């Protein structure tokens, strides 16, 4: 603090000095603010720069409140951190976070040095002007009462009403400009549901692409991840069941990663396909094989009788028989 005293000679009267508590607050907040300012200058990514900026805004709001401007401090938090920095973060996400970028990508070391010298010179110049200037004895706003919203409103809509109207005009122009700048004309026709169906059917007719839904990803005892492929009726892994994004990033799982036992069985030829599987057959016409299972109905006697006659005649046609009776 002593060094600060020597750096900042007391150019004000005794009334213009701030209290000890406020000095401590100022020292802490000023350190955080300048640290975050350097962080903003040297941040590798736009996101960290935006986070540094948010901390600076909040610190400045604290300083406003300490400087008898409570309404302005709250507005600072609401407008800057609440709206402006959120908007900036939205655009950072829209544009893409991107990789690291150098603090100064272009320009020679000489020009960079000149720029840094300029910045330091600006700070030194401003500081020395403030130190060398003679300020009148500070008055201060009377106990924060005059900075109340009612008094601010009187000043805003009384003396500065024209500036207020112009501000409204500026906001309208800015909103219109933002809409115009981001407006995009449609290059292709809008994709509707019916046009999507038509294009799918056209692809089916010309290239044989399956028009329906793709199969869902597989569910296994070890995992139900969307990266696990489903199995076809032949027991093979279906590539189309894994989402396209996962396939493009190379994150899909192969069958032996999901189920090593199944993959080994498939390799040994122990997985039987649908054709040679031993399944019971219905016995319906054009479906040769074992007879249909008998349905036993204890209540209805006639149904049991029918079932009996059906088992007597294995390749019979129960429907026709019933009609004959």
């Amino acid at each position: 603090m002593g060094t600060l005293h020597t750096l900042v000679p007391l150019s004000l009267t005794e009334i213009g000095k701030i209290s000890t508590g406020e000095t401590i607050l100022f020292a802490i907040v000023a350190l955080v603010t300048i640290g975050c300012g350097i962080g903003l200058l040297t941040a590798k990514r736009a996101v960290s720069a935006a986070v540094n900026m948010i901390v600076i805004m909040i610190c400045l709001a604290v300083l406003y409140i300490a400087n008898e401007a409570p309404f302005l401090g709250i507005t600072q938090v609401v407008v800057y951190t609440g709206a402006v920095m959120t908007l900036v973060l939205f655009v950072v996400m829209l544009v893409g976070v991107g990789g690291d970028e150098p603090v100064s990508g272009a320009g020679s070391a000489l020009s960079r040095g000149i720029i840094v010298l300029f910045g330091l010179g600006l700070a030194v110049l401003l500081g020395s002007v403030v130190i060398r200037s003679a300020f009148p004895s500070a008055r201060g706003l009377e106990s924060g009462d005059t900075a109340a919203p009612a008094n601010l409103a009187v000043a805003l809509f009384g003396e500065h009403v024209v500036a207020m109207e112009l501000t409204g005009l500026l906001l309208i122009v800015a909103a219109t400009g933002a809409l115009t700048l981001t407006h995009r004309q449609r290059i292709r026709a809008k994709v509707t549901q019916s046009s999507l169906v038509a294009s799918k059917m056209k692809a089916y007719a010309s290239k044989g692409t399956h028009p329906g839904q793709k199969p869902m990803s597989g569910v296994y005892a070890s995992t139900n991840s969307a990266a696990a492929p489903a199995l076809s009726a032949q027991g093979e892994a279906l590539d189309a069941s894994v989402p396209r994004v996962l396939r493009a990033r190379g994150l899909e799982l192969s069958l032996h990663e999901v189920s090593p036992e199944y993959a080994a069985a498939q390799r040994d030829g122990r997985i039987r396909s649908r054709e040679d599987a031993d399944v019971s057959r219905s016995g319906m016409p054009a479906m040769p094989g074992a007879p249909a299972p008998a349905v036993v109905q204890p209540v209805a006697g006639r149904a049991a009788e029918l079932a009996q006659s059906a088992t007597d005649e294995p390749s019979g046609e129960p429907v026709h028989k019933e009609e004959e009776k």
Partner: protein
Amino acid sequence: MSLPVTAYVILAGVLFALGALTVLLRRNALIELMGVELMLNAVNLVLVVFSRLYGDLTGQVFAFFVMVVAAAEVVVGLSIVVSIFRSRRSTSVDDVSLLKH
């Protein structure tokens, strides 16, 4: 242990210089916009401190106007960044050199 009110003004000067350096040194348009924001905020701090120094509310009223102008500036600036990014796939200000012969 007490400081004069002008210590706030010196802090604002340092913040303004940091914002100016950010605008001059960085090549990312978004970070440059944040540097402009930092400069506007430093000026706001000066306005508030002088409002306290002179016991006059006009400084705070003008800080409000600066806030509104900054908000409008951010909206237009960000929409320019977005529309440039759409056509050039880059937010670097050095890449915007279509008019260069």
